[in-house]
């Protein structure tokens, strides 16, 4: 839940970064800075993990880094078709897609997870369906594809986080995401780094993003994944909508696009919360098996 709260504040930090800074530049600089910060703090631990089976760890993190960049690019372009609240709801489709992916991979999915995913899906349909139009079709395709890639990312990350050291995974994922974003940034704007309007505010906001979103939230997420199932984690991630809507309601319009609260959005939020409660609260059988 804390990871979800951290991620929801991304819009606030993004709002402090001027629009002249391209998204790939933000991802590249913050991911590399976050990776360096973590590597400096946990150098010995990472070296120990590298000595254990470094090449396997690097290969795994490269795969995760590529998946991470892919879904972020798909989200980036897909979100241009939606308003803030509709976009936030659409991103939660990962919670719906994930059980299907798990089922396809012949992994066990509990009835409770299917029911929770159903509630989240109903919430998304209620909130987005009322405002949807044909022009948003390609946006929905892009975000839908992003959700599938993210679901695969979560399933793989969940497995690796219990096998490898989460700190090392976090460092290498950030490093690879930073490197891939650097390539994309260079392709799109070859003189991008020099052209950036460097000033204390941009450096400060990039620094906050680096240590908060990359070094802290991402690492915390990998540790949380270690103790959770992919389905459980993804459904809790869908709570990001609730936080985003709260920010959109209470923060000034100069910082974030205000969310217009409609009955549809309220019903959508209620369904998503219900979906989360079903997943989080242990059933009688789970309580018995715990004892």
């Amino acid at each position, binding site marked *: 839940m*804390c990871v979800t709260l951290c991620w929801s504040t991304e819009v606030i930090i993004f709002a402090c970064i001027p629009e002249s800074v391209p998204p790939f530049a933000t991802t590249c600089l913050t991911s590399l800075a976050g990776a360096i910060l973590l590597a400096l703090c946990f150098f010995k631990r990472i070296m120990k993990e590298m000595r254990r089976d470094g090449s396997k760890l690097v290969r795994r993190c490269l795969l995760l880094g590529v998946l991470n960049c892919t879904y972020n690019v798909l989200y980036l372009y897909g979100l241009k078709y939606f308003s803030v609240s509709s976009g936030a709801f659409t991103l939660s489709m990962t919670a719906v897609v994930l059980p299907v992916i798990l089922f396809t991979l012949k992994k066990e999915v509990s009835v409770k997870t299917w029911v929770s995913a159903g509630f989240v899906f109903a919430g998304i349909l209620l909130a987005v369906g009322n405002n949807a139009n044909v022009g948003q079709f390609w946006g929905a395709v892009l975000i839908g594809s992003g959700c599938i890639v993210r679901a695969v990312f979560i399933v793989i990350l969940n497995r690796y986080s219990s096998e490898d050291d989460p700190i090392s995974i976090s460092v290498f994922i950030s490093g690879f995401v930073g490197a891939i974003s650097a390539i994309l940034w260079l392709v799109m704007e070859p003189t991008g780094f020099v052209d950036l309007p460097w000033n204390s505010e941009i450096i*400060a906001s990039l620094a906050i993003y680096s240590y908060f979103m990359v070094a802290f939230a991402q690492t*915390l997420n990998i540790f949380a994944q270690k103790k959770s199932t992919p389905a459980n984690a993804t459904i809790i991630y869908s709570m990001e909508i609730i936080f985003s809507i709260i920010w959109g309601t209470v*923060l000034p319009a*100069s*910082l974030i696009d205000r969310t217009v609260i409609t009955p549809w959005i309220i019903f959508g939020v209620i369904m998503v919360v219900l979906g989360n409660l079903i997943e989080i609260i242990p059933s009688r059988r789970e309580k018995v098996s715990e004892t």
Partner: protein
Amino acid sequence: MKRKLYILMMLIISYFIVALPFKVMEIIPGFADIRPVTVFGPVFALFYGLPGCIIFALMNLVMDIVAGDIAWSCIAGLIANFMGPLLFMLYWKRKSKTQPHLKTMRNIGHYCITIFIMAVFEAAIITPSVAIFYPDVDWKLFFNSVVLNTALFPILFGIPLTILMQEELGFKQIPSREQ
């Protein structure tokens, strides 16, 4: 000695990394000062004891000087930022028979309540000095701002950070009364 110096440097650097960007920029225009660095108060106190409390209070003063906010009220800030985490640490040290932990909902609830009390205590020390030296400042708004900053960040982000440090990264908290 070398290890102690290393820890000292790490605490100072962590404080700077978190505090400095928020001194440079205004995150939410029109809102009071946002200070996520308060997350370190209970963390420094629980994991590093008295030296942690001293570093937290001194770094707060240093940041005020760096940002050019130096004023008489900073003395109250120094006292509050030392006494708050210190009392918090002493309470948890006395209460726990073993290493304090946040593994149960009961302990997490208890932790939240003590953090809130610490926040009110700190605000009660700083606010009168601000009200005396700066009569133009709305002291009620200031009091609320201090309480919110000192309570919210340690609760929202400090609890996961403490769990992460203790349970996953192997950091040891200060010894309890029977250790």
